[in-house]
């Protein structure tokens, strides 16, 4: 839940600008293996390993952002390429093997608790608190909405659109890095195949939370609610003993349904728009 929620937080920024980041889970795997290799195999100081991991995640964000905003490639294609690119890189780094037995600080992040509250939950709420504040009260947040709402208007108003677009992909990448720490801590293992397909869960969480795929509308707490809903659907079906195949079918339908509802809402707005 916390991992999908963290990915969803980053994804919310990207989707609010009417972009998309399909590479977010692959980025997570890359950061996870980077931290794993550095701290377990190479033996770097854990905090430094974490720092480098977050830098790698953010660098992937820069890569996405520059290709989307400067080179003008469609976000869907750039990050679809990234989906296999970064995961492939993660496998390459570890030659396909998993690294298990994480250093204590990572294990604490994934499984520890403070006053009986699990660390992932604390990290999740703190991150949501910060990101929601940023969206509401800072220049960056305001421009994220403006770009998603009317990119041309934002450009005419003198906003450096490409800089802020790169910014949201960096936030996406950073969120992937944060999610990676939580996940490898909880699994006590890292490798190229962790979090496979979770980019869809993150997108579904964002869309279920009421953020429009066309950008400009939505808020971050909705994504937390969406992540909760996704987890409840998954866990509920597990508890009911529903076959994993049916679960896959159901989740696919939930995602399509959520996007459909979003489109119906947008059309409603357009109609009222015409007066």
């Amino acid at each position: 839940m916390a991992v999908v929620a963290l990915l969803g937080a980053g994804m919310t920024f990207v989707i609010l600008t009417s972009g998309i980041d399909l590479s977010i889970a692959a980025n997570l795997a890359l950061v996870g293996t980077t931290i794993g290799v550095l701290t377990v195999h190479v033996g770097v100081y854990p905090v430094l390993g974490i720092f480098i991991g977050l830098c790698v995640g953010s660098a992937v964000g820069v890569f996405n952002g520059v290709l989307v905003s400067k080179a003008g490639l469609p976000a869907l294609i750039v990050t679809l390429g990234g989906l296999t690119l970064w995961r492939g890189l993660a496998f390459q780094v570890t030659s396909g093997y998993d690294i298990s037995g994480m250093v204590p600080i990572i294990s604490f992040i994934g499984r520890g608790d403070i006053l009986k509250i699990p660390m992932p939950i604390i990290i999740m709420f703190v991150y949501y608190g910060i990101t929601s504040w940023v969206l509401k009260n800072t220049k960056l947040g305001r421009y994220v909405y403006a770009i998603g709402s009317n990119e041309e208007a934002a450009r005419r108003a003198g906003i450096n659109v490409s800089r802020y677009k790169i910014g949201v992909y960096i936030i996406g990448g950073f969120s992937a890095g944060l999610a990676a720490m939580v996940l490898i801590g909880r699994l006590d293992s890292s490798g190229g195949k962790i979090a496979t397909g979770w980019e869809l869960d993150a997108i579904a969480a964002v869309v279920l939370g009421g953020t429009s795929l066309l950008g400009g509308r939505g808020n971050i707490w909705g994504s937390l609610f969406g992540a909760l809903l996704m987890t409840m659907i998954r866990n509920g079906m597990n508890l009911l003993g529903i076959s994993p195949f049916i679960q896959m079918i159901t989740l696919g339908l939930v995602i399509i349904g959520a996007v459909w509802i979003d489109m119906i809402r947008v059309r409603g707005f357009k109609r009222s728009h015409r007066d």
Partner: protein
Amino acid sequence: MDEDKINDQDFILEVKEITKHFGGVIALDKVSLHINKGEHVALVGDNGAGKSTLANIITGVLQPDSGSIWFEGREHIFTSPLEARLNGMETVFQDLALANDLGVVENIFLGRERYRLKLGPFSILNHSDMKKQARQVLEETGIKIQNLEVPIRNLSGGQRQGVAIARAASWGSKLIILDEPTAALGVQETKKVEEIIRKLKQQGISALMISHNLTQVFSLSDNIWVLRHGKMVGSRITKETEPNEIVSMITGAHSLYY
């Protein structure tokens, strides 16, 4: 027209012999125009006469092939609308250029927000200050909107045009270019927007209005300039002319006006 340099000081904008080609087509042929400080000027002409091209050159969207533009007595050919805006020339575009998902205050301050603390992209917005100033601007321009928080897609066309004009007026602008300000609006809405444009005049803001609507042109402008086939046919003081004369200038019905 007297081309004397001394006169330049009285003009907020002077366009001198602008020529613009698109391939082999001459869109504008040595077009000149001037706007006095505080004056509201209308630019009329048939479709394809070159009104939009001229407006685009003045605001820096397009660059002229030859000729000069003087803004506030200085020769200044803008290379982008943003540069024009930073120098005090605002454009209200036909397609509004507002962010429909943002509220009224957000739109008025888009691109020049007020901050409590400057921290680059993480600069902290000063919500209350912007709201207060937005209220004041809306009051000065006579725009009535109850709830400033709602996304402006929920406002009427006239209200949205009002927000666009209020935004232009609040940049401390000296000249506002209005491209078909009421083209997409109903009768009531048009009246409201015309009222807003009159308020601009009371504030001493000059305006160049591009319009098809002659009734509107006659009720709002001090001077009317007529373009025909890329040439400036001439100008008339609104009070001293009548619609028939302007129509014949637009259509070229009488060779008298060449």
